[in-house]
């Protein structure tokens, strides 16, 4: 069975409840005993308080009643003593619970005997009888009265020792009940504290172990599972975390495997590039070299058409050489190391423009480079990007007698969009999506020379920065290229 924290807490509450019930039962029993003692005192002793003097008094009054009736020679008054006797017996009866039944019966008998004797003596004296027999009767009556007094004393006497003993028993029971309550309460409280401490210590240990384990998982160390084996919710959490770690570990291994494959395929790509660079160019050089050798060595023997063909071979091989180089540079952009840093694009743009001016000093181009355009990115790649975009702007404005080129940033956009704008040949927006595909050209080689990989290179550089690039333009009105450079450092194309 699984002892969850809920179960543990319920157990704790149960134990405490049981303890409290036990206390209640025991103290109730003791209290009941104390109460019973008090009831006993109430019944057995309280009615007896003042009973003896009262009974003795009534006995005396009864005696006086007889004497008064004799003295008055009144038979009616003699009858009235009956009421006095009944009162005495009623009083005795009222205290019957407190008196010993045998004593009470003896007292009744003694009083009956006394009353009969007193009544008889009184009647004889009222009748005027005198002499020895009457005196004997009087003596017997007096003995009976004395006996009745003795029996009253025995019956109504308050046993103070017994009463005190009963009180003591009651008080003792209540005190014991209190002691029981106190001790059981204290031990129950102590037990609860110990239990709570034990539970919380286990809890803290488990939580700490779990925390450490999760921290290890966070660092990518999945070697050891979390060692929380308790059967509670934390144990379950640890098992889930371990399962998660195992899953992460599988993913990590999978990722490593894919990364390994990727690295292997990158190596293959490098080998391929190398082979393209080296092996494809060698035969091209042969074709070009021998066509030139033909011209040089056999020129005079060849007619004009042959010379034209050879010139075309020469141009075509050179063009193919350029295309191979362009293809390789495009591949290099993808493979190059990527390191993000703060780059001053304005400065790079100015340097590129300076180079372009040096390349064609006779051109009139008004170039405006906005100052302080700063970006986060890879400096060599961003330089290649600006070389391509500004180079394009320079190239496609070559037909203008006075061209305008501007480099700047549109900070109103988020992320900021950098741009290169020119008023050159422009392009038809219908082909805007074709601009960035490798070897796609919108102008003939005759109009503007080029390999068609410049914008493809630019797009790859932008994608490696996690940004995007778009173009706007119209035929004969120039073009504007916007690009952003934000995104994650891996530079994975979106």
């Amino acid at each position, binding site marked *: 069975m699984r002892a969850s924290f809920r179960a543990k807490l319920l157990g704790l509450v149960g134990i405490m409840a049981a303890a409290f019930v036990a206390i209640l039962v025991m103290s109730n029993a003791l209290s009941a005993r104390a109460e019973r003692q008090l009831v006993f005192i109430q019944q057995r002793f309280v009615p007896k308080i003042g009973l003896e003097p009262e009974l003795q008094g009534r006995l005396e009054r009864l005696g006086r009643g007889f004497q008064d009736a004799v003295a008055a020679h009144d038979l009616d008054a003699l009858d009235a003593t009956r009421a006095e006797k009944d009162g005495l017996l009623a009083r005795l009866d009222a205290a019957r619970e407190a008196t010993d039944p045998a004593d009470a019966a003896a007292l009744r008998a003694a009083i009956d005997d006394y009353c009969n004797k007193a009544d008889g003596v009184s009647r004889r004296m009222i009748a005027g009888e005198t002499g020895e027999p009457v005196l004997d009767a009087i003596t017997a009556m007096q003995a009976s009265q004395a006996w009745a007094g003795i029996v009253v004393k025995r019956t109504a006497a308050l046993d103070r020792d017994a009463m005190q003993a009963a009180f003591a028993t009651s008080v003792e029971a209540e005190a014991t009940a209190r002691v029981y309550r106190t001790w059981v309460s204290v031990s129950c409280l102590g037990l609860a504290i110990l239990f709570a401490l034990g539970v919380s210590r286990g809890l803290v240990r488990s939580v700490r172990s779990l925390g450490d384990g999760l921290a290890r998982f966070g660092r990518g160390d999945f070697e050891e599972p979390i060692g929380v084996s308790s059967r509670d919710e934390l144990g379950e959490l640890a098992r889930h975390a371990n399962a998660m770690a195992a899953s992460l570990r599988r993913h990590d291994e999978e990722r490593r495997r894919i990364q390994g494959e990727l690295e292997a395929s990158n190596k293959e790509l490098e080998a391929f*590039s190398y082979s393209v660079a*080296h092996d494809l160019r*060698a035969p*091209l*050089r042969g074709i070009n070299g*021998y066509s030139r*050798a033909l011209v*040089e060595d056999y020129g005079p023997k060849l007619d004009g058409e042959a010379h034209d063909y050879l010139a075309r071979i020469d141009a075509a091989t050179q063009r193919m*050489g350029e295309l191979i180089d362009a293809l390789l540079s495009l591949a290099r952009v993808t493979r190059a190391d990527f390191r993000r840093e703060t780059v001053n694009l304005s400065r790079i743009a100015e340097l590129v423009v300076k180079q372009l001016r040096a390349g064609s000093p006779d051109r009139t181009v008004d170039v405006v480079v906005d100052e302080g355009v700063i970006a986060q990115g890879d400096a060599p790649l961003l330089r290649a990007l600006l070389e391509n975009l500004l180079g394009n702007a320079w190239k496609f404005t070559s037909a203008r007698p006075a061209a305008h080129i501007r480099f700047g940033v549109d900070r109103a956009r988020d992320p900021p969009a950098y741009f290169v704008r020119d008023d050159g040949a422009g392009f038809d927006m219908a082909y805007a999506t074709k601009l960035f595909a490798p070897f796609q050209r919108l102008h003939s080689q005759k109009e503007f020379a080029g390999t068609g990989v410049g914008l493809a290179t630019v797009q790859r550089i932008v994608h490696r920065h996690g940004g995007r690039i778009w173009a706007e333009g119209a035929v004969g009105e120039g073009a504007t290229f916007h690009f952003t450079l934000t995104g994650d450092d891996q530079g994975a194309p979106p």
Partner: protein
Amino acid sequence: MKSNPILLVEDNPDDEALTLRALKKNHIVNEVVVAHDGVEALDYLFGTGAHAGRNLAEMPQVVLLDLNLPRIGGLEVLKRVREDERTKFLAVVVLTSSKEDEDLLKSYSLGANSYVRKPVDFAQFTEAVKTLGLFWLLLNETPPLRR
């Protein structure tokens, strides 16, 4: 002009012929020894194998070394040349199709004297060979041979 031979290490016969033609066109008359792979080149330089017994006092004025070679590659040849006392000051010019940064860096870090890329355009190639010949055969002073 220095009269020591030129060692051309080149496996492609077209490139070999074109290089020889370019040398001839530029009136470079030094003897050209051609090795078709790295092993042949090392044999010539250290007088082993096919070149056993060669007079090692006569070292090439310059070695034109291709990188992509059968058997032993150009970079390995360069490494062994620099490691050996007899050849460590030899003028070695890497002459190759590759423009890869990696090859450039490796060549220079292994001690290449210069790195020249073979252009596709034969006119440019001839010009490059002419410049090479001018510098390494006419202007450059080699250190005295140690005995």
